[in-house]
Every structure is written in C-alpha cells, then in structure tokens.
C-alpha cells in the first residue's frame, strides 16, 4: 500500500520538490543580499541598542530596499499559495478514482478501501507536513534580517513562519479530499474546497487572530509619547510600545496619559499554536468526515 501511494503521488511529490527548489533559489538570492545590506548598515547593533530608534535613516533605507520585494512577492501572491498547493494535491486523491472509474479497481482488491484511504492520507499528509516545514524553514531563514526590524506579527511574516503555513496547506488538502469524494470530479472539487478555505483563512487572519488572547494595555505618561502620534498597526519601527515585534492595535490620549493596546512580541508562538491548532482541527474534521463517508456510503 505504501508503494501504491508513492506510485500514484510520485509526480506530485516531484512537482512539490520543484516548487520548493525554486523557492529556495529565490530565498538564497534575496536572503544573501539582504544579509549583506543588513550587516553593512550595522543594523543589528542599532536594534540591540535602541530597537532601531537611533538609526531611522538606515532602517528606512533597508526597508525601502527590501520591503517591497518581500511584501509583494509573498503577501500578495503567496497568500493563496498554500491553499492552491493543498487543493491541487487533495482534490484528485479520491475524485480522480471516481472520474476514471478506477475506484472499482482500487476498492475491489483485498485491502479494504478504508485502509487504502487511511494509508494514502497518512502518507500524503506526512509529505505535506515535511513540505510545509521545509518551506517555512527556507522563508524564515531568508527573512531573518527583516524580522529583526519588524518582529514576527506582521501578516506577511506571521503567515509564513512558525506553524501556520503547514496548517494552511493541510487544511486546504483536507477540504479538497472531502470535496473530491462529494463532488466526484477533480477540478470542481478544487474550487469547492478552495473558496471556503480562503474565506476561513481571511476571517481568521483579520477577525479572529487579533483576539486569540486579550491585548495588553500600556499606559505611558505623555511626556514620553512624543506628541499625539501613535504608530498604529505593526509597521512602525519601533512601534509605540518601544519594543520591536509588538503588535500595536490602537493608542489614544487620555488626559496626560497615552493608552496603547497591543499584543506583545513574545506571544508569537502562542498565537501560532492557537491558529495552527484551529486549522489542523479543521483538517482532521474534513478527513474524518471523508473516512466516515467512504465507510458508510460507498461511492
């Protein structure tokens, strides 16, 4: 059964390795020049000394040079990439057997179809976890200099580091496997799976994630707040809390105090676990439903 799974998913595995290789080449090229510029400008020392506030020009120059490459390339195009990857691999897993009639062959052998499915799902899921982890590692490595200035809570960083990238891929995969069983055709199943994945993904990103934990309230006397301006969001370096990586929601002047709500930078991993847990739970639900349906209601 392991050989069968490998034989059927071999070309997908090779394609995934190709994607990973392309990403790695891109990351090495951009990452190397970013590292060179970062050390040339002595930014590490500046960050350590003052969280970047003592060298605004150097910070500005660095983010001007690399910010757009990082942001456009990843935030815009790669937002949907994990979903595409997941549905491309997940949808045909059952749907292609139904489309081409090979389910009659596959499920009439001595190995019962539930075991056939379980082994397949286990192996492909394992492959996707490895792929997701590798992509995360590559992206995390190459972005490291930029992360020292921005922390890890920005959308285009948070979504590709830690655990969530892998969880997004798995979730799209799980949805697509289930959709493949229900829709019985690969391409429609991809669409049927991708849309809810994207909706959930955006809802979690913009509506739920800021509230995973109650934000911390910071009260500063207004003498130290340099006028009424507060770096809103997470793009100011350093943010209003004075500490790189804090995710600042809002600040307001109350009397002679500046009140800031924010998620501290050290909550990154907690947030990652919460969000990845959510998507892994959705994956498990979709795959569990698939197994149950295939067991109960034969195709």
């Amino acid at each position: 059964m392991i050989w069968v799974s490998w034989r059927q998913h071999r070309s997908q595995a090779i394609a995934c390795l190709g994607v990973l290789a392309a990403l790695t080449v891109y990351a090495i090229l951009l990452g190397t020049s970013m590292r060179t510029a970062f050390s040339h400008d002595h930014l590490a020392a500046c960050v350590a000394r003052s969280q970047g506030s003592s060298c605004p020009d150097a910070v500005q120059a660095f983010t001007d040079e690399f910010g757009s490459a990082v942001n456009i390339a990843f935030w815009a195009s790669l937002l949907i990439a994990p979903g595409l990857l997941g549905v491309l691999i997940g949808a045909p897993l059952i749907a292609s057997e139904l489309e081409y009639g090979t389910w009659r062959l596959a499920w009439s052998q001595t190995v019962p179809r539930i075991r056939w499915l379980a082994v397949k799902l286990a192996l492909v899921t394992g492959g996707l976890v490895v792929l997701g982890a590798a992509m995360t590692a590559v992206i995390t490595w190459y972005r490291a200099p930029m992360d020292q200035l921005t922390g890890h809570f920005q959308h285009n960083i948070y979504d590709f580091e830690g655990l969530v990238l892998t969880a997004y891929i798995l979730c799209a995969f799980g949805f697509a496997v289930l959709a493949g069983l229900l829709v019985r055709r690969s391409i429609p199943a991809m669409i049927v799976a991708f849309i809810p994945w994207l909706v959930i993904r955006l809802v979690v990103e913009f509506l739920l994630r800021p509230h995973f934990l109650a934000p911390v309230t910071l009260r500063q006397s207004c003498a130290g707040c340099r006028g009424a301006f507060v770096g809103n969001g997470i793009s100011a370096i350093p943010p209003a809390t004075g500490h790189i990586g804090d995710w600042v929601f809002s600040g307001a002047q109350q009397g002679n105090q500046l009140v800031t709500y924010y998620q501290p930078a050290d909550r990154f991993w907690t947030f990652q676990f919460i969000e990845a847990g959510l998507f892994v739970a959705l994956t498990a639900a979709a795959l569990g439903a698939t197994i149950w349906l295939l067991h109960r209601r034969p195709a």
Partner: protein
Amino acid sequence: MTQDDAGGGAPALRAERLGRRYGHLWGLRDCTLELPAGAIAALVGPNGAGKTTLLEMIIGLIEPTEGEVSVFGVTSRAQVAARLARVGYVAQDHPLYRDFSVADMFRLGRALNPSWDQGLAQARMDALGIPLKRKVKTLSGGQRAQVSLTVALAKRAPLLVLDEPVSSLDPVARLEFMREVMASVVGTGLTVIIASHVVSELERLCDWLIVLTGGRVQIAGPADDLLAAHRLLTVPRATPDAELPGLPVHRTDSDRHSTVLVRADRARLAAMRRPEWLADPVGFEQLVMAYLQRRPETAAADDDSLAVARPGPAATEVTR
C-alpha cells in the same frame, strides 16, 4: 443442487431478497439467487437492468438497501476483507491506471492482495505478447482488457466477476478475450459470473443463466435445465394463453399461427399436447431473447420445478 456441486460447502453466491435503491428508483429489487461453486454463469440483461448493481453488491463496492448477499458464506459487512479476498473483479471498461506500466499494475495487485500470483500474471502477459514495460495508456483496448482480466485472475479469488467485459471491444478482441476467459476458467473450479447484453458470446462458455430485466430476476438456473423446461410451440393463432401447457414467456402472432415460447415441464407438455401443435426445443439465445423481451413488471416465475427466483409476497405491491 447447490450442496452437491459445492461438496457440502457454502454456495459461491447466495442473494436473499437483495435490493438496492437509488433515490426512489430501485436499481435492483427482490433478487434471490443461489449459484453453486464451479458454475459459470451468464448474467444477461439490457442496459440499466441492474446487472452492475447486482455485481457491485456481490463484490461489496455498494451495500444493499435491503436483503443480503453472501460469497462463499461470507456475508457480514464486518468481514469486508474476507469478502474482497474471495472475488476477482473486472469492471466495465477495464479501469486501469493510465500512467502505470503493466508491471506497475501487477505490483499494485501484489501490494493489495496477499494471495497474488505474480507467476501467473507474467506468464499470461508472455503468452499474449504484452511487454511488462508498456504503459497502460499505450495498450489497445483488447490488451487493456487482457491486463484487467489478468489482474483479477492473479488475485486467485475463487469467484471471478466480469462486468460487460467485451462490450467496448472490437469483434476480434471480443473473440480473443472470451477465448482467454474460457482457457483460464474451464477445469479450474473457479466460479464465474459474466454480465453481458451480448448473448452470443456466452452460450459456449456458460452453464448457468440469469436473466435480469428492469431490476428483477426473470429466470435463473442451470442452462440445460432451463432449456429442457422450455418449448417453442407453434399453435393456431386463436389458442388463448390459458390453454397452453405452461407459462407463455413470449408470444409472436402471425396470420394464422402463433409462436409461443412456453415454460412447462415435459410431463405436463405431453399431457396437454394437441396434435395440431408443433413443439420445438429452444436454443440458448432464443430463450434469453424471449425473457429479455418480457415486460419487467410481469411476474418472474410461477413454476416450482425450476430453480428460479420467485417474487415474494411483497413483490406484487411493489410493482405498481
């Protein structure tokens, strides 16, 4: 008859009031059958008669809506693997993985079947001149059918089920395929069910006949018994059905005479015979065609002397 042939073991196939509903349409209903081990059965019916539904329930690809089916005594849904191990299946259109080589298909067979006979698979390909390295998608339809048959045979299951194995093949490939089936089956003790709407190919091979129309079994039994139990009568056209010595299966009226295929045992036929009647024996194809032309709603059988599926009490209320 079953116990004799199976040597006291369970019949190869037993279906009891088997039915399968799709939405509110019944694909198959009230199917009661028993096939002894070693029988080679032709399952004949027009397209949409429920042949595939019956076969898929035998294999366990779909579950019955009502009734039950057992293969060599294995019934339970819990014994899925045991049942799957007992059936080799060639599905309609011979599904194979297109980008696999023939060797890959065999490796898949070996991986998914503990009883896989690799020697048999390779020997068959050698004999047919199909190279193992060839990709499935480069094979002709006839070769694909042969690979499918080989995958099913090499599973070494005691029941072989072929669903419309030749309907997509050209005449030469049909002939070759049926020749292969016959060569690999006769004398092996294998029980075979071949579903087809083409009757002519089955006559030489099959010793059992099951006719299915409109989701119902019309007749089922050993071919010789069935043939012996039917006569083609030529009677004056005015003769009403009630005066015939048995069930009129199919009647063709011409100007003066009617040709009626009747089901009647020999004694009754002799007793009721009138001098002006002509009684001829029936051929396999003739018999099948007569039953295929019956309206599916007509009651299947009413003669106890035949091994025929009879509608139970519930059947009458279902037909309307």
